[in-house]
């Protein structure tokens, strides 16, 4: 059994509980052990890095120091935004002597960016492998046309993330194909959803989400697969608003890649939190004989 330290992040404990649920279900079925970092704190997200660079580094480092004390296990996170902040903090601590000294003064402990931080998608592809995932799939999700949406922070900035191709990512598409789905080729897979502007400048988020959903729909997607709770919230929770604002109808379920993978691995609806999505995916899954 492969074991990792788990950094869920705030969203997975609240608005995106189904991401946490489905990630744990998938990991359990694949023999991957997830243990939460003791006393992890929020990564600071966008408000921290916008406001104070030192704070934006110190917050993730606090959790990473806590992780480092457990043992040498890698940290795995499901949230693309947390992933970005944790990796940025690691890079600063490894390369920037001045910041490292300031953070040491703040936290009272020395840290040099040594704890490896990975996204669950990366762990599944690299440590389990597509072939193994394909073999493990009990129920191929064939017949489902999935538009994999990467958004921003999983792949950008590339020098920091070192994850997939920043302009033409394949990892999620490959994963979906490995378990039987049809990967839809589309143009908006790396366009921004507006993320943290959701509350403050909602109309910008609606415009960006309209473009993303419209392209997915036009290319024949049945649903979207996402790997970030912010992307999911904007595309799912605000989809009805988008439809109203632009006088269009999408009805596109926005599923976490872990939910789709979980279905393929034979997990039940409740274990995957599929009943928690705003755009109900059940009619679609039923029409494809998947539930």
């Amino acid at each position, binding site marked *: 059994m492969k074991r990792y330290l788990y950094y869920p992040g705030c969203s997975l404990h609240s608005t995106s509980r189904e991401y946490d649920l489905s990630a744990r279900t998938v990991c359990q079925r694949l023999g991957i052990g997830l243990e939460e970092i003791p006393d992890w704190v929020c990564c600071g997200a966008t408000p921290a890095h916008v406001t104070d660079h030192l704070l934006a580094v110190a917050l993730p480092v606090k959790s990473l120091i806590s992780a480092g004390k457990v043992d040498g296990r890698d940290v795995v996170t499901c949230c693309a935004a947390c992933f970005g902040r944790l990796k940025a903090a690691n890079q600063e601590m490894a390369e920037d002597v001045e910041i490292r000294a300031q953070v040491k003064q703040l936290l009272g402990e020395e840290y040099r960016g040594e704890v490896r931080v990975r996204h669950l998608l990366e762990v599944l592809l690299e440590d389990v492998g597509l072939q193994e995932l394909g073999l493990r799939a009990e129920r191929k999700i064939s017949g489902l046309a999935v538009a994999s949406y990467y958004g921003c922070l999983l792949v950008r900035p590339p020098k920091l993330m070192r994850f997939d191709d920043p302009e033409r990512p394949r990892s999620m598409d490959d994963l979906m194909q490995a378990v039987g789905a049809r990967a839809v080729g589309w143009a908006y897979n790396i366009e*921004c959803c507006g993320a943290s*502007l959701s509350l403050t400048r909602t109309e910008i988020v609606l415009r960006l989400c309209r473009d993303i959903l419209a392209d997915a729909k036009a290319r024949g997607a049945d649903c979207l697969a996402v790997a970030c709770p912010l992307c999911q919230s904007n595309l799912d929770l605000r989809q009805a608003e988008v439809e109203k604002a632009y006088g269009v109808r999408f009805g596109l379920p926005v599923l976490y890649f872990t939910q789709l993978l979980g279905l393929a691995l034979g997990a039940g609806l409740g274990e995957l939190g599929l009943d928690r999505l705003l755009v109900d995916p059940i009619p679609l899954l039923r029409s494809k004989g998947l539930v």
Partner: protein
Amino acid sequence: MAANAVGVAFRGLSRSFPGGCTMKWQITSDDLRGDFLRQVEAESRQRILACYQCGKCSAGCPVAPEMDILPNQIIRLVQLGMKDQALASRAIWICASCATCTTRCPQEVDIARVIDALRNIAIREGRSSPEREIRVFNQVFLRNLASHGRLYEVGLIRDYNLLSGHLFKDVLKAPVMFRKGKINPFPPKVKGARELKALFQKLRPPARGGA
């Protein structure tokens, strides 16, 4: 030399003025010799003079339509030492930190990080922002973190609505979110929350969500 002023027209600005007129800013040699450029280069760890204004950052920016000046113009203002104009722009607050600009810059300038440095400076200097809601959101978010250690979303929305004056923002979503188990009515409990409070106290007031 101080009187030797150069007028520069910024095309992007015409958007904010009905009729499409362009506005001219005066650059003086005081601006050019000031220490703003060095300050931003030091804080962002970026070589800002490497930018040759190709505009690729602006071409790919998803929120450019809502900006008053474009990302490459933000960089140009910094190059020319035009601190007040750069820090008063709406654009630096509209930036969604998606890093498309950073990814595509042929000169490897991390534009998103430069914009972060500008926002850090503006906040530290207590400058007002034309995007009031975004500032309020950031403050409320950080205060929430400082007291709970992890985000308490019910508190975040409540405080944001109260302070922004948008009292009923997304209120209609509450029942369905509650039903779907997406709202935890209670604040999170973290053991290290007190330690975290101490950390916030050591930082400058804005990092604690203060003014």
